[in-house]
């Protein structure tokens, strides 16, 4: 298992190299000169030249790529010119917020979708099935940006139930001591329940908003894989043993049905990171999503590269994790 993990990590290297190249190319063909952007509108040409020199933009492209890769190896993700910080600083600042948002939406999606999928499959064609199908179909087609706007309007503006869409925690409170960077967990660890409540309240709307698509897809996947598993021979064998239907489903069908669902969940991660871009923009969530949007509009290379690189890396790691969980729940897959 360990050896396999190391091997898989090793295999990620060529992919990562590909990712690095693609991100580099993509960001370099982005039109717009970051130096012009940075200098501000009243700056003159010498200022821009200074900045270009500072940024290494006067170098030929291959040299830029070279130094980019070398710096990458040193853990230097470059400077984000539109924020004036190193990308690493910005990420350290913002990534926990994005991770908290995505993880929490995955959690919501899984907690809702898996039971819904199971119920829909075991009570096929029942009212419960129809309702859950309709909801999951609708969930998959409501654009996040529309839902987010509606959420803010209804729950904050009209009903006043949710806190202001501003940050991760109420301004009156101090954020919990930084342990994991995830406020919910940190506040639990430190036993700061006020902070926990406040950060939960801030998190809940954007997380639901982000999770709808995933929820819908996972519920659908769970339903169909459950249906498929239920139709298989070994379920008939289990029924032939005369055990209770609940045991048939929970012991025999569930794990088998979870396997394809898990794959979908792993693949959803990329979608969630993309959705986070929009969700964060709408909810003023201080994560990397909004940051990346700004970077793209500002032609700020380094953060775009870093974000795509980090998310591709995360995506690969998550899918490695999914594979490992696979091996754990599905004995047919063995890694050595």
């Amino acid at each position, binding site marked *: 298992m360990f050896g396999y993990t190391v091997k*898989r990590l090793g*295999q990620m290297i060529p992919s990562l190299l590909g990712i690095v190249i693609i991100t580099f190319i993509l960001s370099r063909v982005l039109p717009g000169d970051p130096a012009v952007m940075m200098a501000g509108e009243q700056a003159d040409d010498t200022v821009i030249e200074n900045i270009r020199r500072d940024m290494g933009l006067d170098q030929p492209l291959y040299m830029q790529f070279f130094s980019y890769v070398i710096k990458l190896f040193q853990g230097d993700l470059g400077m984000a010119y539109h924020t004036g910080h190193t990308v690493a600083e910005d990420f350290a600042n913002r990534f926990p917020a994005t991770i908290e948002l995505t993880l929490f939406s995955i959690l919501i999606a899984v907690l809702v979708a898996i039971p819904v999928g199971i119920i829909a499959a075991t009570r096929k064609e029942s009212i419960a099935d129809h309702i859950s199908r309709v909801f999951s179909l609708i969930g998959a087609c409501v654009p996040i940006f529309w839902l987010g706007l509606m959420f803010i309007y209804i729950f904050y503006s009209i009903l006043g139930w949710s806190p202001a869409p501003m940050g991760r925690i109420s301004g009156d409170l101090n954020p919990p001591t930084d342990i994991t960077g995830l406020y919910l967990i940190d506040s639990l660890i430190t036993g700061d329940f006020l902070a926990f409540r406040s950060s939960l309240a801030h998190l809940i709307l954007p997380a639901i908003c982000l999770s709808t698509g995933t929820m819908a897809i996972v519920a659908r996947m769970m339903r169909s894989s459950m249906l498929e598993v239920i139709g298989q021979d070994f379920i008939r064998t289990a029924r032939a043993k005369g055990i209770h239907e609940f045991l048939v489903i929970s012991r025999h069908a569930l794990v088998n049905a979870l396997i394809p669902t898990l794959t979908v969940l792993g693949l959803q991660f990329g979608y969630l990171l993309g959705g986070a871009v929009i969700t964060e923009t709408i909810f003023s969530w201080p994560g990397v999503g909004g940051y990346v949007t700004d970077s793209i509009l500002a032609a700020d290379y380094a953060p775009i590269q870093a974000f795509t690189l980090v998310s591709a890396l995360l995506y690969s790691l998550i899918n490695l994790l999914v*594979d490992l969980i696979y091996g754990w729940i599905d004995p047919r*897959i063995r890694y050595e």
Partner: protein
Amino acid sequence: MSTLNKPEETLNGATSLQGSDSLQPTDSDVLLEIRNLTKHYPIRKKMFSRQPAGAVRAVDGVSLSIKRGETIGIVGESGCGKSTTGRAVLRLVEPTAGEIRFEGTDIRALNPEQLRKFRTNMQMVFQDPYASLDPRWTVRQILEEPLRTHETIGQKELEDRIDSLMETVGLSPYHASRFPHEFSGGQRQRVGIARALALNPRFIVCDEPVSALDVSIQSQVLNLMQDLQQQLGLTYMFISHDLSVVRFISDRVGVMYLGKLVELAPTAEMFAEPLHPYTKALMSAVPQPDPDALRDRIVLKGDVPSPANPPSGCAFHTRCPVATERCRAELPELKTYGNRQVACHLYA
């Protein structure tokens, strides 16, 4: 014994049918010569292909020669390499080693384009009549494909050819516009046979052509195949795991175990007195449709070993009731005794 040799006329019929063939007829009546045919499939990790971790020795040094107009049956248990042998002979899978000569032409030396052309000489009938016809094509399209691939013929002639092909296999011309799913298994197998016949091949590999069919249908197809052989002078390599079918249709039978030919003999002799312990066990294991039949069954221990790491020496020694030290250590060769061959130390 009477089934061993086909009447002379059939042979002549065959040559006249293939009249315009460019290959030089050889003096010998051997159509196909297989030497040391070997196919090893590299083993890959299930999900992530890396360096091959070993090889499945699907076919491991099979040699045999097939005479014009005869039917050679190949039997053996699942996974012993029957299909692989058949497909390797046609170079549908690329053999790892060995030599295949079809009337003196070294098939393995042909380049892809030559091979494509050469396929008119040898065809295949497949096991699963449901999977061997493209579900989206009508029977006419299926039968047209070989003709269009190799010849440029007019529409009229094409129609005639298809009609006569269908008649040959006992289908009515009005079936031509139907799709495979509108046919029964037996009828589909007829379509499969018609397709194989379309190019007037002289040699057909039949890979379990009746295994998927019910007994009542199976006999229809077996009869048809035998009729065709007589009419067209075909040579068959008939693969099956069903001893009774092989016994019915073959002139000679080869028994395979773990990628190797362990015994090869004329049918009647083989069934009268199997030599190899494996053949004996195999024959005794077949349930007789006769409640009063004598059953002094040799029940073999255990399962067929994996062809990925076959046992040392004689591959059968792990299950052989009469195995000796020598069998464990030394690989017996296929040796000729009269008109039969066996690979066993017992007969050394």
